[in-house]
């Protein structure tokens, strides 16, 4: 029932194109996260689904209804705003009841729905307070509660965690994931924080400049980013990018040479890689191991507890981050040699398109 289908959506303000011909299917019950930097159009997309903005062209379907022409309140969606947008003059209870009253829900039904939601969100003791008397986290819960009581087919979240402190944010992430398990509704969550996307999403939609860069499950996007943009946006620390030139092939797999002359083997089919042009090698920190290979000098050491990140500078001046598995990290200024895991390096062409390793048959 709650599958969402966006078909050929475009949005422009005057001559300014925000979004061009965007299509996307979100299955019923999915937790989809729209991820991208600010200005990428993810919020606009969400607002179009909500009905707060009209697409310049294109269609939006929810289940088997086309909803892009109907009023926001009748679409069967509920939204949690970045600033929560609670009604400041109403108590928590009134905030939650407003939407139900508007559609003429019987009084006792409203009361029971609020009671259930309040219990679920542990805000039952706050029902008679006004938003001004609540903490940020409490407001957040009320905003979610206001959405829940409407039992929408689709929940829309517009960066709802960005105003919370770090501890509260991670707790809320878990609660939202739990909530999704429980209500089983479709959820769309907009964020620029890849951690939120990775932790909560069943599917991530990475957006940039009004286009979808990639759609996929979190680990798929993490492992096989389809563009350099996606690769850089996902993962912490950010992926290492090193300029390379092609150095022929070995066994049908591409070889590339780093700036210092080190030749790196990859598992990428050389046939798939364009022959000419500058290339960039991408490799994540956990796939760089110290020991042999490219020479580098340790610049910064970041101890995160469960892992230690070492930032080392290669000859050509670029930085490589790698995981130091052991408890003993190298000293700053120490010279190390780094090898890149051939199975996990990827290449990007000048246009940013990614080429991934191909498992051997």
């Amino acid at each position, binding site marked *: 029932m709650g599958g969402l289908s966006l078909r050929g959506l475009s949005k422009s303000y005057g001559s300014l194109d925000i979004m061009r011909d965007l299509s996307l299917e979100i299955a019923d019950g999915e937790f989809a996260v729209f991820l991208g930097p600010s200005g990428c159009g993810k919020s606009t997309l969400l607002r179009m689904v*909500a*009905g*707060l903005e009209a697409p310049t062209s294109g269609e939006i379907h929810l289940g088997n209804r086309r909803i892009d022409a109907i*009023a*926001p*309140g*009748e679409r069967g*969606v*509920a*939204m949690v*705003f*970045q*600033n929560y*947008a*609670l*009604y*400041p*003059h109403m108590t928590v209870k009134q905030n939650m009841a*407003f*939407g139900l009253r*508007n*559609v003429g829900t019987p009084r006792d039904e409203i009361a029971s729905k609020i009671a259930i939601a309040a219990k679920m969100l542990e805000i039952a003791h706050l029902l008679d307070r*006004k938003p*001004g*008397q609540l903490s940020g986290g409490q407001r957040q819960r009320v905003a979610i509660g*206001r959405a829940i009581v*409407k039992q929408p087919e689709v929940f829309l979240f517009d960066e709802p965690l960005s105003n919370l402190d770090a501890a509260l944010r991670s707790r809320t992430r878990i609660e939202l994931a739990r909530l999704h398990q429980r209500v089983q509704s479709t959820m769309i969550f907009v964020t620029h924080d890849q951690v939120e996307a990775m932790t909560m999403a069943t599917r991530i939609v990475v957006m940039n400049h009004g286009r979808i860069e990639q759609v996929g499950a979190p680990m798929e996007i993490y492992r096989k980013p389809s563009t350099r943009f996606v690769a850089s946006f996902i993962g912490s620390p950010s992926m290492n990018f090193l300029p390379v030139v092609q150095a022929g092939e070995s066994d049908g797999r591409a070889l590339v040479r780093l700036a210092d002359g080190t030749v790196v083997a990859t598992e990428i089919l050389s046939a798939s890689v364009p022959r000419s042009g500058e290339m960039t090698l991408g490799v994540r920190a956990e796939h760089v191991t110290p020991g042999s290979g490219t020479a580098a000098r340790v610049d910064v050491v970041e101890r995160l507890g469960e892992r230690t990140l070492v930032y080392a500078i290669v000859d050509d001046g670029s930085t490589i981050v790698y995981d130091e598995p052991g408890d003993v990290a190298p000293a700053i200024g120490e010279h190390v040699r780094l090898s890149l895991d051939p199975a996990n390096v990827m290449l990007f062409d000048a246009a940013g398109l990614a080429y991934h390793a191909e498992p051997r048959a």
Partner: protein
Amino acid sequence: MKIRTPSTATGDRLILLAVVLLAAIWIAPIVWVVGLSFKPNEVLMRTTGGLVSPPFTLKNYTDILNSSAVFGWMLNSAIVAIGQMTLTLILASLTGYGFARTNFPGKRPLFLLTLVALAVPEQAIIVPLHTMFATLDLHNTYIALITPRLAFPFGVLLMTQYFRAISPEIEEAALLDNASRLRIFIFIVLPLSVPAQATLGIYTFLHAWNDYFWPLVSATRPEMYTLTVGLASMQTNFAQTEGLGFLMAQAVFAGLPVLVLYLFFQRHIVAAVAGAPTR
């Protein structure tokens, strides 16, 4: 940076001192007015000083209260002021919301019209306005006393600005809560604009209550007089020299209801909406 705490305390005291001094300047003439209103007129012909020394009298007030018409005038003033205030608030709020948050063909020119109307001085239209109401045979009615002031462009401008400052997300939330535009206006936007409503309300009430020239030329039948016109009509031709105490008593008498209204309203100006303590 380092010595902020003591300096803030000193600053607080200095500012309070300045405000209290200013308040003293502000209240002195008012005290004078009240004081004069309790002095016999004959005494005031010679001197307007010596407020604290006898003789005192209540005659200035009893003279007002003994006028059989005075409560009728007060009722008229109340009807006119409340009518004008209510209608102005409704008009200004609706229009302000329309300009601030909705869109429709011709919005820009219509808003410009409001700005133009803002700059029209009262004196420029009072003669044509009087003629118009005479043609419609509406003088000596409440309609004539109330309607000419309803076109209050400043009220529209004020409400427009105020509505613009309300977070649009709140309205969007209401939109998603399936509220109609009108419901949003009534249940969300209006309650949120209480401080502005109270301000505009006090101002229009005060303006209507103290208005003199228009009711003077429009309400010519004594039973339609407003309080200002009625009280002024009681003054003798030499009121300023012979009836100073009486004049002052009239001022206190006419001003008191507005002051009471302000005391009532100011709770809403410094309102509970945004001003509620966060802790």
